């Protein structure tokens, strides 16, 4: 495996936000449907809710040896605490996506800020699906997954009767991400810091 084909995504937030579910759906779409190599891991503590929650998806064109993330290409932070904790593990040309409903202090301008929780509450009617709004944005911004496959993977994993709600949430996330022009962002976290001097 060439190291450069490795793409690492970390989903982070607080326990109960559906962080791991979002990562599993992403991995399912990329691995089972797109047919790439994928490893999905998570770390968790004994508590069911609250506390930091973290899940990772490593994507590659070849077999993956080390299954966890080392140099993050894309960090999704659904809370301020997780943003602060993991921001410094993104690689210089990586990207940060935050839920601007809950992350008030964004540590960089190389960030995509979308109010996932507010969108879920106002547009879909359930705050519960904020993770799927975020997944839509992650799927679009990362460019690592076929978005139709992402929707199929999502629908195959949600409880019956919630398909429409989840589909709408995912599509809302994709729509919001489409509006962001990533090429307008600073090219690297490092450049940004250097410019400050």
């Amino acid at each position, binding site marked *: 495996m060439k190291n450069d084909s490795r793409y690492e995504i970390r989903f982070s937030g607080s326990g109960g936000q559906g962080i791991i579910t979002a990562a599993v759906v992403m991995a399912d779409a990329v*691995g*089972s449907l797109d047919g790439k190599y994928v*490893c999905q891991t998570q770390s968790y503590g004994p508590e069911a809710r609250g506390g930091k929650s973290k899940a990772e998806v490593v994507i590659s064109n070849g077999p993956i*040896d080390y299954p966890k993330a*080392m140099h993050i290409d894309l960090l999704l932070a659904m809370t301020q605490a997780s943003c602060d904790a993991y921001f410094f593990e993104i690689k210089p040309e990586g990207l940060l996506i935050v839920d601007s409903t809950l992350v008030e202090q964004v540590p960089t301008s190389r960030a995509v800020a979308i109010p996932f929780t507010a969108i879920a509450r106002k547009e879909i009617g359930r705050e519960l699906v904020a993770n799927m709004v975020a997944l839509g944005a992650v799927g679009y911004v990362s460019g690592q997954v076929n978005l139709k496959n992402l929707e199929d993977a999502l629908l195959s994993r949600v409880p019956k009767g919630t398909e429409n709600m989840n589909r709408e949430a995912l599509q809302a996330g994709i729509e919001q991400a489409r509006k962001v022009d990533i090429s307008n962002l600073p090219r690297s976290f490092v450049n940004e810091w250097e410019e400050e001097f």
Partner: protein
Amino acid sequence: MVSKDKNRRLLLQGNEAIVHGALAAGCRFYAGYPITPASEISELLSVKLPQVGGTFIQMEDEIASMGAVIGASLAGEKSMTATSGPGFSLIQENLGYACITEVPCVVVNVMRGGPSTGLPTNVSQGDVLMSRWGTHGDHPIIVLAVSSVNDCFSLTVRAFNLSEKYRVPVIILSDEVVAHTRECMTIPDQDKVRVVDRIQPNVPPEWYKPYADNNRGVPDMASFGEGYRHHVTGLIHDERGFPTQQPKEIDRFLHRLHDKITKGFPEIVLSKTIDMEDAEVCVIAYGSVSRSAMMAVKKAREHGIKAGLVQMITLFPFPRKVIDAALRQCKAAIIPELNMGQMSREINRVNQSGTAIIKMNRIDGQLITPDEILKKILSVS
């Protein structure tokens, strides 16, 4: 549509792949007690086993679980239990009973941090020597270490096959990282899975000697309830299954127990080597750590260092041949482990060539990273 769906690539956790492997191997009985990080095995089997006419029982503890597994196997079913550290301690008593009565069974131990209840949600490799010597007395046992979702499927099938063929308990050593990592795999069609069943007696019941030796060293095994009445005891027994204190019979019995495994070495002892052809430094690893090691070796090669990897798949019986060859070839061997050096001691025991054995131990509940191993490789090159 159904057949297409059946061969679909599935995103599975290591624990789930063990379940699919067990079912493919013909496992139809599971008794266990839930414990992190092995619970998904119980959870999924509780759904799947009834669907194929099998039996799932949640027992009151792991001592009873192991008892039920032995009973079911004596009655002719391929049986399994799964647990983690604290439960593995409780299993040991009856595991010894399975060894001496030569009852085929598979025990999965998903390692977490110990001792005692330790670190329930963190990874460790602290049970390596316990899996070999956890139950008392000189006993043969087979221990296989899994490192990926594919391994979890294929080595579980192999564990059942070896267990049935040699009438010996087989331990599958997994760890929290392998157990909970999701990867894609395609479950092979059943007719592509090689399944081995225990050999049944073909003599009339009244001629049956349950522990009679033969050219395989593995007695034919009748199922309870089919008319082959016989005695099963944890005491050293003669070929009819009754206790004996005759030194000759004791000696013959115990030697047969060990010899049947020794004869099977070529089939039982598995390992994988990567980039070892011209290696001057090798990393010897197993389980989830072997994946970190694999990346470290590749990175070392990019640095122009002749590094190689020996991945131990069978931990016991100890893969002496491949380790010995690697030690003779290399000037240094790095042994990364998530314990204080349980396997590095075993490796040093067979080291006859003065090769530097370099321990690397991480016991903080985290997986050793490729960079840590790479640094070590660079420091000895």
